[in-house]
């Protein structure tokens, strides 16, 4: 694949731009590049490189200027990407996350989208959501695409407090808030599964490249799952389907 641009963040990092428009095609390109660069990082082919972070259309490589040079890293990455086909292997885990579709913005969305609440829930839950990137907050997944006809901009006035676990949509994407946070997206439901737990060896539940389906649950069932997770009788990892 072609490297559109290498954009420096001074002597700390460099962003490799791989696509220009958010969507499944960009996600596939970024996924393929991520896999290639992660393998190079692992095998020491990127001198001075520290870690990678993935966004919708780009990958940022953080490096130590005492251990490597950006010009050298860019040359190595450019060469490696030339030999990397722009589609990701169908990898990543499939998660089935419970979602109580009682979000405070459902009525407002129904009016905007000219759909019923039930139609929104049915179509959102029938969709397979691809995790494009983790960001904004630790463990927060940005997922696409939303079904046809679901496109809404962000709320004009962001909420100062969006509850932890809120499942929200905007700009053709779905997110789940891992923590209570200010936020401007439209809340459709709540997911009881903790997405970020500092004490776990891998603190974030989801990774870019994973897929998510939401299983609608009642308020009562939500409460039961939330309590079981809190007591440790359900392992959050058990919401991933076992390897194909």
């Amino acid at each position, binding site marked *: 694949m072609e490297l559109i641009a290498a954009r420096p963040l001074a002597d700390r990092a460099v962003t490799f731009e791989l696509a220009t428009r958010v969507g499944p095609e960009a996600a596939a390109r970024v996924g393929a590049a991520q896999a290639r660069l992660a393998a190079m990082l692992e095998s020491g082919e990127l001198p001075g490189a520290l870690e990678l972070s993935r*966004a919708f259309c780009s990958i940022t490589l953080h490096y130590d*200027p005492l251990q490597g040079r950006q010009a050298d890293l860019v040359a190595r990455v450019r060469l490696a990407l030339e030999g990397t086909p722009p589609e990701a292997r169908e990898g990543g885990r499939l998660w089935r996350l419970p979602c109580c579709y009682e979000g405070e913005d459902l009525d407002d969305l129904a009016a905007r989208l000219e759909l019923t609440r039930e139609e929104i829930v049915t179509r959102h839950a029938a969709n397979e959501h691809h995790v494009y*990137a983790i960001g904004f907050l630790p463990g927060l997944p940005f997922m696409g695409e939303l079904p046809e006809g679901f496109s809404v901009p962000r709320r004009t006035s962001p909420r100062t407090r969006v509850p932890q676990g809120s499942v929200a949509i905007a700009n053709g994407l779905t997110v789940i808030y891992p923590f209570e946070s200010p936020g401007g997206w439209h809340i459709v439901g709540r997911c009881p599964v903790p997405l970020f737990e500092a004490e776990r060896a891998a603190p974030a539940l989801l990774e870019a490249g994973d897929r998510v389906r939401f299983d609608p649950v009642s308020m009562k069932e939500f409460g039961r799952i939330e309590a079981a997770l809190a007591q440790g009788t359900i392992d959050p990892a058990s919401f991933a389907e076992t390897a194909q």
Partner: protein
Amino acid sequence: MNARLLLLRAGARSLLQDTGFRGGRGIGVPAAGALDGDALYLLNRLLGNASDAAAIEVALVAPKLRAEDGPARLALGPGLSGQVSGDNPRKVSAWTAFTLHPGETVALTLDAGCPVALIGIGGEIDLPMSLRSRSTLPRAGLGPLGRRLEDGDVLPLQGSARDPGDLTFAAPPRAETGPLRAVPGPQIEWFTDAAHETFFGGEYGVSVETDRMGMRLEGPRLTHSERGADIVSDGIAPGAIQVPGSGQPIVLLADAQTTGGYPKIATVIGADLSRLAQLAPGDRLRFSAVSVEEAETAARARRAALDRIAEAVIPANAGRIDLRALWQVNLVGGAVDALRPDHFPHHSEPEDRP
């Protein structure tokens, strides 16, 4: 028994910080770590620590600490001074490593106008790591305590038993002046040529809206090109300067989110990042443009300069009579020149000290 450091007073915003989390950017965890990385490096060198050992970063109100069960070796970064109370009351100043004996208390003071400062801790804090770090990110519950330090917290220490006396650098670093160096980009094309001239020619003031995530600047407005003030969110590193629609720049710091949707006009080079930690609301600053290669050369030069400082360590408080040392050495029978405390910089601490 291993020493413990008790926070009699935690201070207003005291956090354990080291060189930051590793491997977290891909899951939305920022770098975090001490804002003044140069001071952290020097304090750890002064203490004989690993260079990435954790320190306490304080802001607004400095803590009051007591050593318990054993001696604690501490070092004060720029902006801090302290008064030790106990059977050997004494003052300690910035860039000094000293031993706080069990039962002794040090009350620290942060200089007016100094936004943050570091307390280096000898040896290692015996608390668990996450993401290969003992840094703290309260909003994600990350860190040995997962929150800022509170009154009554106790930090268990390991491996700080040796007491080489009070030490300081022969030539501690001096505050630098002159423009902050920054590399244009990553989103050069999102700004007009005039905006670049304004940014690298104008003077900016530090706003009160400044925290560990970012520093808002106030000054000449920066105009976006026809591409506008939105980008597809991409990666951020500390030092990146994003410009939202208001045209007023924000310098992103250690705790900034990992990706952002505003164009970034320039990025402060690594060698000048620590200078940002010393800026307080109302301070004025300018930027000068350098290339990536110049930034990398500056990074190596900075490390070499820090190493030169770290290699010249001398006894602190030369000329002051060290009552504790006198008491120990004279009673043992050695005749010493009490006006030359460097006669006994390496006296050992008796095991049975009260």
